[in-house]
């Protein structure tokens, strides 16, 4: 049962931003609601107000242009995956969306919501555990059941970021557009959007209480750029990744011109790994190089008692994703 709340129905982005600071303070933004409604019912979050973004016309638009693809934050995952431009030019994005949740949830869940959803850590999701993330003093996962938790950056809080769209968008060097007070729009690389636990335990991204994520902008694709997203999980129907790897490569002949590597479900944020990218730049991808990159990938891991297996999983997925992106397979 939810705690009662008030709901604002703004019709413009500006009105939504204004409502955030005005009479609807202590609010949460409502998009598809597939995550938030569960949190409200479980009393993981008990805001006094909701600001319903679905009443803002046009926030679900998907626009194509020479500079790439602009996806409204309220576009459903299904509508992105069905978009012809996305299907032809960003197959890895379509691929990752196809693995998210269930068809029913993808018909309702939005891209913005996917990026801003809260973690699935079973301690965080249980009202009876007041963990660090909820203002308590303990990260129960450190000494508890941590098989599904982070192996990187896990000292303070061991959640894994749950989005599987985020790593693919990050690998594509996407930009997010954020509405701020007084009608201003801020753009930033999506990499800067996600935060580490050290930057504030109560959140996973930079959005302040008076900010609204409005669009995600994907740069233009080209025939020499390839992206592969791979993940491993326990169940194939409706489950969360145990480990995900996204590799984006731009080839110049038989060499890698630029590479972007993002690891997911292994850290509190989608984890871009410039150190691995540097090992690839200017090199031809062969098995010794793959071995080298995989070794380097897991080297900084600090697994907890039950999740060292994620290192092996990460190595296997990374090697496959590198080969796939190199060969240009979707």
């Amino acid at each position: 049962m939810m705690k009662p709340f008030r709901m604002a129905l703004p019709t413009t982005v500006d009105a939504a931003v204004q409502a955030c600071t005005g009479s609807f303070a202590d609010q949460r933004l409502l998009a598809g609601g597939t995550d938030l409604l569960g949190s409200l019912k479980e009393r993981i979050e008990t805001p006094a107000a909701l600001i319903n973004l679905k009443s803002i016309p046009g926030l679900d638009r998907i626009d194509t242009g020479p500079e790439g693809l602009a996806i409204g934050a309220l576009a459903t995952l299904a509508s992105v995956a069905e978009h012809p431009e996305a299907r032809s030019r960003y197959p890895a994005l379509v691929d990752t969306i196809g693995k998210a949740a269930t068809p029913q949830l993808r018909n309702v869940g939005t891209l913005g919501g996917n990026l801003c959803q809260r973690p699935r850590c079973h301690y965080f999701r249980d009202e009876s555990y007041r963990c660090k993330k909820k203002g308590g003093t303990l990260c129960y996962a450190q000494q508890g059941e941590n098989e599904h938790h982070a192996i990187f950056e896990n000292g303070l809080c061991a959640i894994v970021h749950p989005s599987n769209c985020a790593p693919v968008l990050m690998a594509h060097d996407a930009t997010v557009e954020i509405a701020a007070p007084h009608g201003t729009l801020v753009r930033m690389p999506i990499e800067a959007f996600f935060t580490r636990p050290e930057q504030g335990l109560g959140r996973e991204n930079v959005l302040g209480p008076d900010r609204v994520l409005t669009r995600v902008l994907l740069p233009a694709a080209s025939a020499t750029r390839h992206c592969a997203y791979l993940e491993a999980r326990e169940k194939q129907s409706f489950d969360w990744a145990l480990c995900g790897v996204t590799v984006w490569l731009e080839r110049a002949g038989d060499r890698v011109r630029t590479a972007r590597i993002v690891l997911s479900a292994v850290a509190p944020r989608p984890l871009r790994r410039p150190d691995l990218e540097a090992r690839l730049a200017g090199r031809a991808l062969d098995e010794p190089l793959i071995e080298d990159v995989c070794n380097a990938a897991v080297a900084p891991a600090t697994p907890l008692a039950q999740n060292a297996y994620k290192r092996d999983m990460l190595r296997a997925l990374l090697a496959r994703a590198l080969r796939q992106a190199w060969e240009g397979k979707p």
Partner: protein
Amino acid sequence: MTQQITIRVGFGEHLRDLIVHIPDDDIPPYQPGDDLRVVGHSEPRVDAVAKVTGRARYTYDQSPPGLLYGRILRCPHPNAEVRGVDVSAALALPGVKAALTFPEAFGQRAVRFAWDGLAAVAAETEQQAEDALRAIRVDLVPLPFCVTREDSMRPDAPRVGRGEQANVGRTYPPVPRQREGSVDAERAREVEARMQAEEAEVTRLLAACEAVVGGQFTTPVQTHSSLETHGVVCHWEGDRLNCHISTQGTFGVLREMTSPRGAVQAASARIRSEFMGGGFGSKFSAGREGVVGALLARQAGRPVKLMLDRREEHTSTGNRPDSLQQLTLGVMQDGSIRCLRVRGWGTPGTGLEGAGAHNDAIYELGTIDKVEYGVRTNCGDARAMRAPGWPQGMFALESVLDMAAAAIGMDPIEFRKKNDRHPIRTQAGYDLAARRAHWAERRNVTPGAGVGPVKRGLGVAVNQWYAAGGGGASVLVRVHRNGTVEVRNGAQDIGTGTRTILGQVAAEELGLRLDQVQIALGDTEDPRGPTSGGSVTAPTIMPAARLAAHRAKRALLVVAAERLGVDAEALDLKDGHVVRKDGTALDRALPFAEVCAWLDEDAIEVLADRPTVDRRRPNYEGYCDTNSGVQIAEVEVDTGTGEVRVTRVVAVQDCGKILNPRLAESQVIGGVIQGVSYALFERRIMDRQEGRMLNADLEGYKVLGPLDCPEIDVALIDVYNGRNNTGVMGLGEPPIVSTAAAVANAVANAIGVRIHDLPITPRRVLEALAHARASAAPDTTPAPTAPGEEGR
């Protein structure tokens, strides 16, 4: 009095004559070659459309006028003394119409597992009920606790039980007790002596065996996860209770609600469960929630609906207990098994009993030295779950059988055949399963062989069951003057298709189509029926139904014979008409409905009891006491990520006479699905810090979904066993017995490394592969070391 008859028994090519004795008033079982028009045909489930369109009304759908919503306040501590519970503030809130406390209602002054109940309220809305729970004041003294077997078995572990109750105690062989409960010292010494002799004998035999294999196996706690949660809608008329309940035992609930020793003590009651959304063994009784619903409704003087939420369902309505099993098997090079040693531990919740594993069954295993212990934990108590003790036991036993076959270089199926005496499995089951699974071609002769990271493998396991039903059911058949037919029994359809086969058996006898028979189930105003447990429902109800319909037919034919001026014995009913048994034509076609119109009274009404030999022997001597199955699973294992996919399961199964092949297949499919889910996904995760279940929902508690479902190839063997007048045997449980074992053996065959722990998750596969790389010793394990035998 009995009559002596000769019947054909067996199956397929393996039929023979058998002289049997059946009661004078029963009819002979169906025989091979009988011209059956409805029975044995794949009639669609009669309530399928109602179920998929939402027209079927479950307990959850009941909403009588004036309904209140009940909720239970639950305790987050796994172990606590309850000093006081005060509901006065809750009762003062708007909309709250009733409240009770568990100390007052049940004398319960302690909480022994997290989310056990403390108090309950009923209010006009669910929101008001929820708010009321938050207003209840509770005075608790939290105590130290253990929620895992490992913690509970430590020498310095906090006591889970009360008084002198140790955390660990022997459950098998049982400790002999006096009537009042104290240990019978003399008989206990005899048991100890026998145990020592068995241990010494097995030690001697193992030393003489040509191959000795063994290992330690663990299985998780599995929750029933019924899609319809436990709950009731209760409404009192004076001191009579009307109760809709999601149950697998309407008459058990009736006894409980009206028992003079119960908490409710209704003067009379009517219990209904027309449709129910899954039980799997967890819904035998009214449960605490059912009793609370009845008490709140009486206090409020209004109907109360109390359905548990998902967390309550996972934590407080029972589970299949976990197990730790250490098996050592001694075999000879010719494939004969000489002896088995078993040491087992299981946690059935706060008690000791109910966590045994059937790991010494089905096969000819020679001398057995088996000792089992129960381990108390501060967790929700075990309840029967679909073949209690069997999937966990067979997982361990079938694993060591494969290890033994590998050790002596024998094919796993040949090895099993050599140690199996079941006539159906040995004469047909193994070969049929092997053929359909392409065992010879698709199995890895060298486990772990194959190119690339994804390995494929096959594994075999078997099952057996013992349900030919018994007494305790009556069926009412009414043939009305207007030609309609009713078949009534008060037991429930747990989901197996009882309603459909009940109609088929009656329709067959009356020469009607299934859609010409109206079937009523799930109402204790109708004749008594069994609790759906142990797979007894079909073999208990169907013989009564067939006999009642048969007698109704004879009565109707007497009416027809009088009008026609012929001998009633010469007549029969077929295809909706009266016919001559000898096949010659009557003067004119005589439809069923026309004869019904000749009835002097409103209806022919026959109530027949389930025929039995006597109280101790409910069934006739027949072909085979048990029904059996053989399953072969095929898997793909990604050795890079550890992901396992079960791609195909061949399931050969028999259950006596197959009344409806489609529904029988559906039972097997359901068992295989739940078995694959148990093999790969399901497990209760307990947090040792606070003692609570962390995955008490259907997201974290992972149940197989459509993409995880293998292709399931069911091959049914129709068996004439002669054990009752329909010959049907139970089928709800046997298929799940073997599935996880077959999957585990297939995984070992695929990757060349055995996983000793269920569920077989990617983590377990990767850890086992890493361990094997480090030790380079596939499919063997060091001799198990006992995790402490303090309670012995």
